[in-house]
């Protein structure tokens, strides 16, 4: 494929701004306004009022998350502290006959020192400065390891945002996904996690924010459920703390 052409894109953007005037103008006109007006009063924002008071206690949250993750076909586990995580990962890797892992490039995950507990495997960390290399490694890796940014118990969902150290592919390409979830990052409601995301200032807003609620699945063939279609087929959620 040819390289990106800034002139072409600039032309498209110019045409776009022209077209925008007509496009938005048409909408405003049909809605009985001369042009796009000021911010309307936004009275119905978010969930119904009673929802904000729905809160679960810590143990309940974790229990609920694990029930949901399991019901979706994932494997939830509870681990007392980060020091117990390496051996669980080692067990999973052996069960899945993994030969290589890739993790987000985060200190918490580096500290797991998987090289010591699983010396027979090759271990990699996502490198934002080597896109092609990282992608290839992800494609070959059997296990992808992420640290969840947030989690929501009510739906059994983890939130994983992208960054230079947190490639999206880590939680997507390998067939086994291991998500390490510090218990203090567990919310009750999905909206709480969304609020955290929304509060990130625009200049630091992640390009990809992924809400993951279990392994990849499809029922497209005669309504018969199959797990692991494009995304990871084995999804482990390790709740720590």
């Amino acid at each position, binding site marked *: *494929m040819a390289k*990106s*052409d800034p002139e072409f894109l600039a032309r*498209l953007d110019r045409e*776009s701004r022209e*077209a925008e005037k*007509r*496009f*938005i103008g*048409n*909408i405003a006109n049909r*809605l*009985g306004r001369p042009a*796009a007006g*000021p911010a*309307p009063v*936004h*009275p*119905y*924002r*978010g*969930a119904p009022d009673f929802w904000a008071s729905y809160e679960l206690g810590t143990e309940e949250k974790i229990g609920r998350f694990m029930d949901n993750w399991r019901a*979706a076909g994932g494997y939830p586990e509870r681990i007392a502290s980060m020091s117990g995580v390496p051996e669980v990962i080692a067990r999973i890797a052996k069960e899945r006959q993994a030969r290589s892992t890739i993790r987000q490039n985060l200190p918490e995950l580096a500290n797991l020192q998987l090289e010591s507990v699983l010396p027979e495997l090759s271990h990699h960390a*996502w*490198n*934002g*400065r080597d*896109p092609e290399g*990282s*992608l290839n490694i992800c*494609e070959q890796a059997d296990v992808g390891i992420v640290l969840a940014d947030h989690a929501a118990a009510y739906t*059994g969902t983890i939130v994983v945002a*992208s*960054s*230079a150290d947190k*490639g*999206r592919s880590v939680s*997507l390409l390998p067939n086994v996904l291991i998500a390490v979830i510090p218990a203090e990052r567990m919310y009750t409601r999905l*909206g709480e996690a*969304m*609020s955290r995301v*929304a509060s990130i200032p*625009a200049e630091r*807003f*992640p*390009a990809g*924010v*992924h*809400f993951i*609620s279990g*392994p*990849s699945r*499809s029922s*497209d063939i*005669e*309504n018969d459920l199959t797990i*692991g*279609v*494009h*995304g990871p087929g084995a999804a482990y959620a390790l709740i720590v703390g």
Partner: protein
Amino acid sequence: MSKPQGSNVKERARTALQDEFLIDAVKFTTERLKNGKKAATAEHGNWEEWRERGRQIRAHTVAHLDYYLSRFIENARAQGVHVHFAPEGKDAARIAMDIAKHRGAKSVVKSKSMVSEEVHINEAFEQIGIESIESDLGEYIIQLANEPPSHIIIPAIHKNRRQIAELLSKEAGETLPPETQVLAGFARRKLRDKFLEADIGLTGCNFGIAETGTVVIFENEGNARMVSTVPKIQITLMGMERLIPTWDDLEVMATLLPRSATGQKMTMYMSGITGPKRTEDGDGPEEMHVIIVDNGRSLQLGDPDFQELLNCIRCGACLNACPVYRHIGGHSYPGTYSGPIGAVLTPALNKNAEEWHDIANASSLCGACYEACPVKIPLHDMLVYLRNRKVERGVTAPGEKMAMRGFKMLMGSHAWFERAVKAGQLGQKLLVRGGVIKSRIGPLGGWTAYRHIPALPKKSFREQWTKVTAEAETSFKPMTDEMKSRMEKIVQSRAKGGH
């Protein structure tokens, strides 16, 4: 992509009704999804409040679409998105082709997008020699079969395991057994290569969040994540009305959509994509385009009868609730969308009433769609309004117009009504056998093909009124004071503006 014969629902439905596998598959699927929704919404609780909130958010957004779309565009551009505008479907295809040609793209891999079907994007790519592969398992299957989707959420329900195995075996170059896991496994491997090779990833958009310029995609397979992560260029097609103001509002949509579509608490993946990759990111598209599509949507704005149509979040719950859809399946509906939403959307997006054919007639107006809709679109009312618009524009079957003139005369005054009933009582003597009419001739043939019509009694009710009222008098008992006071209270509260 080949389309079923005939543009009339009636003709297409005739074919569908005879296809036993199709009908069984549609019934099984819609029942499964309907039951899933019922269970999920009951478990969640307070569904009517959530529905109302969903309606409020969507209706508010649509009523201020100029504002929210402007915010979305501004915020998306600030994050590096190239935004484009497609007043008509063909504009969307033209812009996508422009981008693809300029980069010398050879292949496109796409995730599920109803808008992409609406604008016939695959055909456009094919015409200029660019391969465009569907990656959603169901869409991939029907692409291989060269057929349109038969359901918004589960596009290939009309295909059985053997048919799917045949299609995939041809692709594989070897015989695959009709086993789900094996077939899905093949699709995974085959499409994995396509994800890695493709120059362009094409996605749809479930919701655009105005406050951050984010494109939100719901899915279960992971293919939309692939399509928006691996290829260097991403093109997203977005219906112009698919916006919500804030991430707070996304919680409501995330509560309504999965439960309404499949009965899930959440789809396995929900991705918020805000611009192309950042400079320091190692993956994600280098270039991201969002094409905002009108294609008849703006026709609904400012029209009090149809503006709410734009509330739709494309969950498919109306399909699963509709008894007509359940009997005839998605292929009976001409156009991209099927079921109740399709029956309204296809005509509504097209300002030429002559091209609507009979699609708005494919409904008994039972209202199940409205009851099922998580954002409370009165589709059952809209179908009547469409029928009225057709009549007002003079697009009517001549026989029907005459029959309605007859109705107007006969029902316009009680004298004529009584004459008509009398005429029926006398005239039916030729047709009545054993108290019923079975004759299949004439306009009522459609009725008598399935039912016997009872003969009109010798005297209508009103002809017997004097006798009836006299006989009722013999059973008369005076009204109790309690009842009298109940009735009086009701009448009084009306005068006050209550009740």
